[in-house]
């Protein structure tokens, strides 16, 4: 009854976030942490979580006074036309490269582990078509699809992690402080942009039913994802010791290759479709956000028609690196390191400017 056209409710919003961020534990994001933080990567993760609360809080505060603006309009409003456009353009560049690199990683995973003889471009085309179709449908439908499939995906993930937990040995987590507290903090600081997605959700902020739901949904999703990723990181270390974990590129898939459930010896193909659906929803969402941002900057109203162009661009960019297995993770790491300080500082800037401009004077207290 409360549904008006074009809005998504808190359920769908949280579902999208849970899937888009939760799948980060299934690709090579954990191995980025394991590289430097070794077996204490989970402490790094918790630190990252604590640090990310700051920019999220600032961002929400700024949005609370500009309820109907999305991120790009907010940038224009705060930083002025020229500088705002530059900021948004920068964000678009980061978002787009994250989309290309992440999708290239996922195609690599499928190509290396599941479909070894298929040329990666075929897998990429399929992924491109499905995600393009999803992005074209719009955010309401991505949200609905996320909500429908959420419980099944999370249950199977929990099952996989639980079985991996029983095969693991908790003593592998010690020594507790791994490579030393300095290393842990350094890893946390440089890889903070794992949660950079929370900055980009500003793009769909006006689409959520009410600001209260937006705020509540963001916090619920954030805490859940943080707990999820930390538990997964702990379980991976429990299964593979600190020695092996540095060389394994995709710990989730190695884990499901190793575990066996009862009489079924190789269960990775059972978890594959669930993981794939989560990946599709994640990339449809990313593609949609890039499209909206693009349409906002270049003032294109009907951004749905850009979908085929974008998909083709992404497919070609994703398959172009010469030594994909090396360059893609390397580029990804570089991107994350550059993005981390920006992600931390930009919302603080925005809040400062909003405060200086006096936008907070007209704060409406009752909806907070």
């Amino acid at each position, binding site marked *: 009854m409360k549904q008006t056209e074009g809005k998504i409710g808190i359920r769908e919003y949280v579902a999208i976030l849970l899937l888009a961020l939760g799948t980060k534990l299934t690709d090579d994001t954990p191995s980025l942490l394991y590289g430097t933080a070794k*077996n204490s990567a989970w402490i790094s993760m918790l630190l990252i979580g604590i640090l990310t609360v700051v920019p999220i809080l600032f961002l929400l505060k700024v949005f609370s006074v500009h309820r109907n603006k999305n991120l790009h309009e907010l940038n224009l409003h705060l930083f002025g036309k020229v500088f705002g456009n530059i900021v948004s353009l920068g964000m678009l560049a980061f978002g787009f490269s994250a989309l290309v690199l992440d999708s290239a990683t996922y195609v690599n995973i499928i190509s290396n582990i599941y479909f070894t003889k298929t040329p990666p471009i075929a897998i990429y085309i399929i992924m491109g078509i499905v995600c393009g179709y999803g992005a074209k449908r719009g955010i309401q439908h991505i949200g609905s699809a996320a909500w429908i499939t959420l419980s099944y995906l999370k249950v199977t993930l929990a099952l996989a992690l639980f079985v991996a937990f029983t095969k693991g040995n908790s003593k592998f987590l010690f020594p507790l402080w791994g490579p030393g507290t300095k290393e842990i903090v350094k890893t946390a600081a440089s890889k903070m942009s794992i949660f950079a997605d929370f900055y980009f959700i500003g793009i769909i902020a006006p689409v959520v039913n009410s600001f209260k739901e937006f705020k509540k949904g963001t916090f619920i999703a954030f805490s859940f994802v943080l707990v999820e990723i930390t538990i997964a990181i702990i379980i991976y270390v429990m299964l593979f010791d600190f020695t092996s974990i540095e060389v394994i590129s995709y710990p989730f898939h190695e884990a499901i290759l190793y575990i066996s459930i009862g009489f079924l010896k190789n269960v990775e193909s059972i978890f594959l479709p669930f993981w794939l659906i989560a990946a599709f929803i994640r990339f449809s969402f990313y593609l949609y956000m890039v499209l909206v941002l693009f349409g906002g900057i270049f003032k294109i109203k009907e951004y749905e028609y850009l979908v085929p162009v974008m998909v083709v661009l992404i497919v070609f960019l994703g398959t172009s690196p010469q030594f994909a297995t090396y360059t893609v993770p390397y580029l990804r790491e570089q991107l994350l390191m550059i993005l981390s300080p920006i992600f931390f500082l930009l919302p603080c800037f925005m809040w400062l400017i909003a405060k200086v401009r006096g936008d907070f004077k007209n704060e409406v207290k009752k909806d907070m």
Partner: protein
Amino acid sequence: MKLKRICKVCLLVLLLLNVTGCWDQKGLDRQVFVIGIGLDKAKENGKINVTYLIANPEVGTSQTGGATDEPALMTVTMRASDFISMRNNANSVVAREISYDLLNVIFVSEELAQEEDFMRFLYTSEKDREIKRDVILAVTKEKVQDFFAKNKPLFLKRPHKYYENMIQRGVEIGIIPKSELHHFFRVTEEDANLFLSIYATAQMPTKENKYRVNENDELAGELKVEGQTNTGQFLGSAVFLEGKMIGTMTGVETRIAMLLHDAIPVRDVLTVFPDPFHENYQLTVRLIQQKKTTVELDLKAKPPRIHVTLPLTIDVLTDPSMENPVENKKKIEEIRRAFEKLMEREAMSLVRSTQEEFKAEPFGWSLHARKEFRTLKEYMDFDWMKTYPDMKVEIDVELRFGKFGRQPKTPSYEGIRD
């Protein structure tokens, strides 16, 4: 409207291009399944002799289906650089694509395992997607080629079941360790423990069948077995240090190591102790480990001390001396003390041999030690492997009595021989 149509046609054409592929499709009848791989030393440098044990899918297929008189197994031995390139090498004689989906065991001959470079060959298994990390590693006394040739198990409709069951049962009673590749990689990389691997052979015993209290106190191949039964023996373990085999352990020693290692559950252990009341006979007991082994470390002392408590419940199942210890509290106490002393002595002798002969321990105590350090660097500096041989180890066995067999009491010997 026209634009939409053109787009749809283009999409279909694009999908059609994907159709021309089906690259990863492999029909089940175009594959052949390898259930065991054998690695032998080759004369040339950098090469090994690989043996495949291939299962015949037709045998034992359906209840009604065609009864073939083809053998259930096929073996192929060739020289190769590793067992991934071997997949194509073998296609010169094997008609179908080699698939490692059913691979269960990798056998290595003792000769190859004692090489420095053996580890390089084994690490190739990490690169192939079809070799899972839970594949078992086993060492054979003779060349694997000969092992496969001589090992002709009976009741063998499904060869993969033979190896699976043999290993599973052996691990359950503790006479062989569960040596997965997963553990091998971890132990080798952590560089603090010994890795125990299954020891097997199909050779006839060479030594004479000496008297020993526990029949399992031997290696595979030394048990004298007569009758029409399987020729292969799986007993005892091969000891690996840093990826190279340096020695062996008998079945009983392996079992003690399994009991002392707290991460490996051992069930259904039937063992034999000398009867304290009668020299010539032994009491059969069942050992059940209900609580975990506790390990207390004191690493600050010089030399560092380890105190291990092994709580066990024993069921005394036989009473060949017919003394009826059940009735007498003093007798039970005597049995308990005797058993505890015996077990502690055996465990200590094993620990001593690991300290002196192997210079590392297979009991997983380094994992307990990890808790005592703050950072990895401290742990690495401590260098468990270097400090272990000098440590003072105390093992405390605590026994509790469980059952005394189905019928606790037996009639007294004198009463019968009256």
